[in-house]
């Protein structure tokens, strides 16, 4: 065991100090974090206060008043306060609870920062005879201040009242200067739209308020009904979390088992294997290498899991995670790692160079890709027969079970542990068989064996 640990230690050091690992596994996530931080910083940068003029040509004379009212600083402030309240109201309970627990104002502060200060917009009413070409040219002006033309609204004559013989109403044209704040641009359009609706309602003898009520149906969150009661569903996040967990285990198992195969091929092709076998038994060598790469994979898992948790924490979404799933993530990593690592070690011992390994590895790689192809239907219907069956069949059961566990309707405990036991059974058989193939294959040079030959080695060794 001591020798196996020494082999493992070398394997870990050799992998951690290799350029491929440093760049691929460690630097990439760091770059992602830095990019995310820069991006979030840029997004949370408070935009400068928008000050300027909105010109409106209103042949109906029934829209301008509403627009003026809706674009007043007071109306802006009120509307934004209402929007923020609506956002807060629609936030998941867990996030609201977290925000309360932390006693911070992070979310409201961030939202306020994001929308920026209330703009100061002056409404400039244009005469019907206005030269539109000249008015549009004003949008190109470079001066800054209250008289800067920010937008030009041209209400069509039949925007409020239907033209004779027509069923549809007219609308409006909207011209803006380049680089107008998107938020403000949207708010101007909303104000024009709401003003036209109000004017239409009034024109056809309706109470504008009543019309607003008639057209307003709020967006609602779905609620899942389970034996434990009603649960609020967060479709987008709920859909991504199973994939994230499956991907975590996929990346860590793939990275480490690939390294294991590569290092075994390297030891074989550089003829160091026989020197090692003079000091350790084939079983100790393979066990040491697998243990070493287990730590490598675990590190990858922890790095990416840590990144995920940091991301969830920074968006105050950590409450969406069940702590137990992280525990099971490690259990399933262990199960699937040993199965795939044993296979990769056996293949590595049988071939002389990476190129030769492709034909042996391809079927297993396709198997490993199965969860990537099927995660959508499985996470959409985690209780289906297909989902239950796939989450019980090793070696892909770990991936599918994690998808099911992270879904909105997790499987019962007995299914989880049955899957774990089945996975452990295959992992044991895989390591046992791989040890035999490893011993024979490591000293064999020349044409690599096919699966049938490898099976024969397992039986005879």
């Amino acid at each position, binding site marked *: 065991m001591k*020798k196996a640990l020494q082999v493992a230690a070398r394997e870990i050091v050799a992998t951690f100090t290799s350029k491929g690992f440093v760049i691929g596994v460690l630097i990439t996530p760091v770059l992602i974090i830095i990019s995310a931080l820069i991006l979030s910083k840029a997004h949370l940068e408070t935009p400068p206060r928008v000050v300027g003029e909105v010109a409106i040509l209103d042949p109906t004379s029934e829209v301008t008043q509403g627009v003026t009212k809706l674009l007043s600083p007071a109306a802006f402030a009120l509307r934004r306060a209402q929007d923020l309240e609506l956002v807060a109201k629609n936030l998941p309970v867990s996030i609201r609870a977290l925000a309360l627990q932390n006693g911070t104002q992070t979310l409201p502060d961030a939202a306020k920062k994001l929308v920026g200060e209330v703009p100061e917009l002056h409404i400039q009413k244009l005469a019907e005879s206005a030269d539109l070409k000249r008015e549009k040219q004003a949008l190109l002006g470079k001066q800054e201040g209250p008289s800067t033309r920010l937008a030009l609204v041209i209400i069509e004559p039949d925007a409020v009242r239907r033209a004779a013989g027509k069923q549809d109403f007219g609308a409006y044209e909207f011209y803006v200067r380049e680089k107008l704040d998107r938020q403000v641009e949207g708010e101007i359009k909303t104000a024009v739209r709401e003003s036209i609706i109000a004017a239409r309602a009034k024109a056809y003898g309706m109470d504008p308020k009543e019309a607003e009520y008639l057209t307003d149906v709020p967006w609602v969150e779905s609620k899942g009904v389970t034996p434990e009661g009603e649960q609020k569903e967060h479709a987008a996040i709920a859909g991504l979390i199973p994939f994230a967990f499956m991907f975590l285990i996929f990346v860590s198992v793939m990275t480490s088992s690939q390294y294991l195969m590569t290092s075994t091929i390297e030891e074989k092709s550089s003829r160091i294997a026989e*020197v090692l076998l003079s000091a350790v038994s084939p079983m100790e060598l393979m066990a040491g290498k697998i243990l070493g790469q287990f730590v490598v994979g675990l590190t990858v898992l922890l790095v990416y899991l840590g990144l995920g948790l940091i991301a969830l924490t920074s968006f105050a979404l950590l409450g969406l995670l069940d702590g137990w799933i992280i525990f099971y993530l490690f259990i399933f990593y262990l199960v699937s790692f040993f199965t795939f690592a044993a296979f990769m070690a056996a293949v590595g011992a049988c071939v002389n160079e990476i190129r030769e390994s492709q034909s042996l590895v391809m079927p297993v790689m396709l198997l490993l890709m199965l969860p990537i192809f099927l995660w959508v239907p499985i996470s959409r219907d985690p209780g289906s027969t297909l989902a239950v069956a796939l989450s019980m069949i090793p070696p892909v059961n770990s991936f599918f079970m994690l998808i099911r566990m992270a879904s909105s309707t997790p499987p019962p405990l007995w299914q989880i542990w049955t899957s774990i036991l089945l996975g452990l059974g295959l992992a044991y058989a895989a390591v046992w068989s791989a040890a035999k193939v490893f011993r024979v294959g490591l000293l064999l040079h020349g044409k690599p064996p096919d699966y049938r030959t490898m099976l024969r080695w397992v039986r005879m060794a």
Partner: protein
Amino acid sequence: MQNAVVLKGVTKAFGDKRAVDDLDLVIPRGSLCGFIGPNGAGKTTSIRMIMSILFPDQGDISVLDHASALEAKDRIGYLPEERGLYRKMKVGAFLRYLGRLKGVASARLKSQIPTWLARLDLEGVEGKRCEDLSKGMQQKLQLIAALLNEPELLILDEPFTGLDPVSTRSLRALLAEEQQRGTTILFSTHMMAEAELLCDRVVMIHQGRKVLDQTIAGIRAQFDPRSVLIEPLDPSADVSRLKALASISRIERQNDSYALRLQEGADLAAAMRDIAATVAPAKLEVQRPSLEDIFVQIVTAGSQESAKELDIHAPAVTEKGRVSA
């Protein structure tokens, strides 16, 4: 305790080919044993089985009184035929790693590694990558790796291959020193002259079967010299006069010398006197068969059994012109 390695009826086949066939071998402790034979004779397979890297299909192996070398790996030093290094690893780290795998304490390795490097003229390479060393230096490095644990049994597979004459001489001296320390040494080679120079015991193997297993002294006694080499003082001397001597059966020319084949039962001392009296010699010496001669003689016959039936007293087989008797 008397024998370091004992093989009894060991057989190993790869597919239809028997790489080692019913091999019996005893290597006494403290001996320096040469394992000789041509390429593909089964030397490396036998050594790998002794090292428990391969396992025999039949037969028993005992190494340092253990049923398997796996139980005594820390007491064995091994230099495989196929030299291997971690190319990117630093020399010091490489030796420390292999030393620790052999159970040598880290503190001891700290002092041992520079000593060994200096002893094999590799000072200053500890911080270099293995791939930066020349082939000969890499070979020395692997030899150090085999010796770091001060083994009781040292097994070297073709250790002289690829070495320059100076390094070959250093290795010979090193092996002699190790033997004096009490180490049992088994080395395989197809360079029989090396075995002849170094060994006190030789095992010959051909097509997986042992064809000779003797001490050097025993071989000399068994393969009694029946040939005398004469270089005439006068190069134009009439050597054919020697044909008249009763003790001479055949004469073969070898450049400026002549190999004189003695008759069966002829007295060597008397024959030497008669030869010197007939042709004045610049040089007259008893010609001993080399291991290579013996080996070629045996394998030409095809098997050990048939070799016994042949005239093993025959002189060296040469490609030189023959002077008929």
